[in-house]
């Protein structure tokens, strides 16, 4: 090969992004800017949305080869390797390990009926699944779309990777965006479905939970859940391992690393990987808009499901349960619980629902992992 001046300049030009960009790539780059704006300025779940947005930006520059697999002797691109942790289903369980090490299941142990609300608030998953089928999505895709209604990022990413990778970025972005929008999505539904009298209910203080109960809890949950639904093992198993590391009190250094450095490293890699799947040809489809619309419906119906069961429990308990804690069952820890607190206090300034809402809130994490396990068992 000769390296004459003009030839080389032409070669550099021909290999540049300017000579190779497709309109889809340019649009995707603009989309990534919007997401960066939402993450940074609007603080939409920035810990994941910012890496996702940057991964999307990187993946849509032309000619970088960042996503290409190895070819003969030539190694693959950087994002190809980082993506393996998603492809092989490794990152989401590790995030759950960290979440487990950060979660206090005390309020749930103090009031086990919180788990009913955590189940009811998965309602939107199935509504969205059904609508997605009606929109013509394949069952695997419909299940992945439905899981947005679980309001739980790692679970959604995990299931989508297993069932329908093409939708991965759309579903992850929808899940994290709507989680950030919980304070806007839920209150109107909460006011619509509950009466002033219901919202005013002050709940009894939760009993104190002993250290021993907290230590046994993750073991019980892991054993029971995984026995009933083996496919849920990676998520629930790691969540409960993290929680055991925390609650045992004898492995603090492991618990700290799981919830800090390990989680941060995996978060960066997970975010960038998920964003990197958002290349134009796949993302700029009508499907993406449908996913986003269905995701909102999923969130709304999950909220409704939690609230309606909350109303039932209000009625059954003779008015001791404030139905506002039902909407916290969607997970989106701890935002949804905070929304319950805020709405409760609006109805009755002396009302403190936060701890009561934390029970359904963490139950919702278990609930959506279970729902994901069921879909994986059916369609995986």
């Amino acid at each position, binding site marked *: 090969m000769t390296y004459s001046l003009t030839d080389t300049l032409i070669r550099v030009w021909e290999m540049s992004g300017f000579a190779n960009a497709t309109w889809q790539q340019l649009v995707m780059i603009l989309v990534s800017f919007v997401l960066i704006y939402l993450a940074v300025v609007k603080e939409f779940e920035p810990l994941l949305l910012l890496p996702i947005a940057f991964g999307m930006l990187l993946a849509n520059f032309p000619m970088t080869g960042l996503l290409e697999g190895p070819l003969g002797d030539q190694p693959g691109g950087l994002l190809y390797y980082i993506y393996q942790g998603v492809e092989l289903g490794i990152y989401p369980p590790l995030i759950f390990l960290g979440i487990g090490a950060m979660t206090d299941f005390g309020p749930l142990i103090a009031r086990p009926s919180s788990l009913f609300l955590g*189940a009811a608030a*998965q309602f939107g998953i*199935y509504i969205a*699944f*059904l609508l997605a089928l*009606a929109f013509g999505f394949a069952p695997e895709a419909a299940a992945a779309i439905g899981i947005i209604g679980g309001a739980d990022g790692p679970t959604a990413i995990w299931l989508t990777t297993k069932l329908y990778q093409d939708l991965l970025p759309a579903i992850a972005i929808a899940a994290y965006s709507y989680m950030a929008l919980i304070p806007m999505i839920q209150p109107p539904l909460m006011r619509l479905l509950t009466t002033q009298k219901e919202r005013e209910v002050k709940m009894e203080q939760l009993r104190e939970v002993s250290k021993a*109960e907290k230590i046994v809890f993750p073991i*019980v949950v892991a054993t029971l859940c995984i026995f009933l639904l083996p496919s849920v093992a990676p998520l629930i198993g790691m969540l409960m391992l993290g929680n055991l590391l925390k609650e045992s009190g004898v492995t603090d250094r492991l618990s700290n690393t799981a919830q800090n450095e390990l989680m941060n490293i995996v978060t960066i890699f997970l975010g960038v990987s998920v964003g990197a799947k958002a290349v134009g040809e796949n993302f700029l489809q009508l499907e993406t808009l449908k996913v986003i619309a269905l995701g909102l419906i999923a969130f709304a119906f999950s909220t409704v499901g939690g609230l309606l069961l909350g109303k039932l429990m209000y009625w059954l308990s003779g008015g001791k349960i404030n139905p506002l804690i039902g909407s916290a069952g969607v997970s989106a820890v701890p935002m949804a619980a905070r929304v319950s607190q805020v709405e409760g206090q609006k109805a009755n300034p002396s009302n403190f629902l936060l701890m009561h809402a934390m029970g359904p809130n963490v139950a919702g994490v*278990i609930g959506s992992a279970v729902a994901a396990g069921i879909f994986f068992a059916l369609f995986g």
Partner: protein
Amino acid sequence: MSLLEGLQILVIGLGTVFLVLISLSGAVALESRIFSFLNKSKKENPAAEISTTPEKSTVVNASVGELKLIDVDERTAAMIMAIVSDESQIPLSELNFKYIKAIN
């Protein structure tokens, strides 16, 4: 997949979610009963082994015991000592606080 099949999956899926979480709720309630029962029998028989790791708080209390707290509550004092101990990597038992006093 037909919508009818989808509806069945809705029923089965949500049903299974409820099934699993209701079982969990039962198991947790059972766990609480067992622990509360064990605690009662322990109180009657205080010789039984109880705590898993109460030593840490004991250490703090011991240190607080040697210390005059002037206009400072115990929680704040413990916090201050824990910070200094953690940061200086000196175990609490070796740190020698004489007074912790609120300044005014």
